[in-house]
């Protein structure tokens, strides 16, 4: 059997010298091109799991394998995040001093490349997100939906294998939620990317082909 794209084995994450357990032994396999929703109540550990899968943090015990190689040892975390993973956050996390186009390019600065290429790619991605006329606007000049679309363009900047979205519609109204979800599904279909969405919205979770429920740091189903 070929190894999955991402695999979590016996993930345990505890804080405060073990007094707080965010994950209590999680095993997950995610294949290339899959669309997975992770849901659960607040504090259930779903965001922590996403951080581990994205190489933002290392587990206290257990390991995350990317194409069969453990993150943090065989796979360098920074390189993994810059080349294989695109993050999308609830609060968008755009840099306020940079315009939309520059916010997309900043992700590419970590990877050496020609400045022209970076600018062209940022422009193409923003155009794809329907933000052709908003490229030189700063985050405070954009609506919430537009900001999240800039963040999606940024997540795609280095053409990653996996998109990890942490409550991507948490700060959006119904119309923008629908729009962003349509964009994310479209990206997955067109690019064949693996999409993992953490959400507490049942509607979004149930629309995914695979739905993982997490409670008290353990997977329910």
């Amino acid at each position, binding site marked *: 059997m070929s190894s999955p794209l991402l695999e979590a084995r016996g993930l345990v994450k505890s804080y405060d010298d073990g007094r707080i357990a965010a994950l209590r032994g999680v095993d997950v396999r995610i294949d290339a091109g899959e669309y997975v929703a992770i849901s659960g109540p607040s504090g259930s550990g779903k965001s922590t799991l996403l*951080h581990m899968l*994205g190489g*933002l*943090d290392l587990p206290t015990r257990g390991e995350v394998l990317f194409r069969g190689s453990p993150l943090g040892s065989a796979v360098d975390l*920074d*390189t*993994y*995040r*810059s*080349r294989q*993973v695109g*993050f999308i*956050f609830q609060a968008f*996390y755009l*840099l306020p*001093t*940079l*315009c939309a*186009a*520059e916010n*997309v*390019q*900043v*992700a590419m*600065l*970590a*990877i050496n490349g020609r*400045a*022209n290429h*970076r*600018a*062209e790619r*940022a*422009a193409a991605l*923003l*155009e794809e997100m329907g933000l*052709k006329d908003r*490229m*030189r606007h700063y985050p405070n000049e954009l609506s919430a939906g537009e900001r999240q679309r800039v963040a999606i363009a*940024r997540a795609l900047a*280095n053409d990653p294998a996996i998109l990890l979205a942490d409550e991507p519609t948490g700060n959006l109204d119904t119309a923008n939620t629908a729009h962003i979800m349509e964009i994310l599904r479209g990206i997955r279909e067109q690019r064949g990317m693996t999409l993992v969405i953490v959400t507490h919205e049942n509607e979004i979770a149930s629309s995914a082909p695979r739905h993982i429920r997490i409670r008290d740091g353990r997977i329910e189903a």
Partner: protein
Amino acid sequence: MRKTSNVMARHLSFTGFAWKNLRRRRLRTLLTLVGITMGIGAFVALVGFSRAFEHEWMRLYTSSGTDIAVVETSFINTSLDESVGPKIGAVPDVAIAVPMIFNLIDLTPDVNALVYGWRADSYELDSLSLLSGRRFRDGQPEAILGKNLADDLKKRPGDSLPIQGTNFTVTGVFHGGTALEEGAVIMPLDQLQMISSMQGKVTAFHVRLRPMPAGEAYDRYVKRAEAEIEAAVPGVHADPAADRAANNQLVALAHSVAWGTSTIALLIGILGIANTMAMSVFERTREIGILRALGWKGRHVILLILTEATALGLAGGFLGIAMGWTALLVLSAMPQTASIVSASVAPLHLAESLLIAIVAGLVAGAYPAWRAARLSPVEALRYE
């Protein structure tokens, strides 16, 4: 074409990103710049001044053809008995040894000048060119003035000039080879001994050596002559003229004041940058977390913070050079200081100042950059 350029996004470079971060808090950046500018400005002006001062002393010796200066062994307030002159003159390689005194005297409340006491027959007078009047005579209250000093004091031959309570007659105005001479008063040795209560004492003997024996290197020849002089007259120290310029007590004092003051000013400037960068890293904790989430390595973050700190240092360096140079120009134009300040700054000194500015930025940015790179991405993203 136009349509395409509308779609093209603005380029973002690493340095462009750093620049945007600096522009974000303009007042703070500006105040930090003022700090490092003052530090570099002080370095350019003070160290530049002390080096130019040393250089002028050196030229003073070389233009008069002095090979060796003989002083008392003790460094501070060197004074020798005038009577040892003949002993120095009797050393085989010495062609001539002339006694001299130099002093810094207030001529008016606004103008202080270097005052030399020379004998009327001193060979050193030959290196000056008289523009008007005549030389002074031994035993007479007479003096000749450098051109700059004469202009500042508005004196011409025949005018009277009171110095330390004695009325001197200006007998001539001369053009000297150096800024020091241009702003100096030269009077008979005996007169300067009298007004500065140094009867029978001199500051130094200036020695001209006999022509070098064929085949001997100048440095070796001078060294041999020094040893001969020191052996002939116990308790004296014979210095090559070039070293004497550097060891001259006024020059040494100028060097230590200049380095001391500019080091303090530079330290304050470095602390300013360090404080700004530390504040900036603290305020941007979450943004650093975002960059790390996007795959920036610790070294990219370090490079960003160091680029910002170095840009501050470099900008402060250029502004400081402009400030220091302006200060030297102003000082060299003021009558109180014109005689000892030259407006010229050596290119090497400017390069050194820029290098110090860059190093100052790197040193100041090092700790904040290290801290920023150590932030855990998750912790930084959670930071409110």
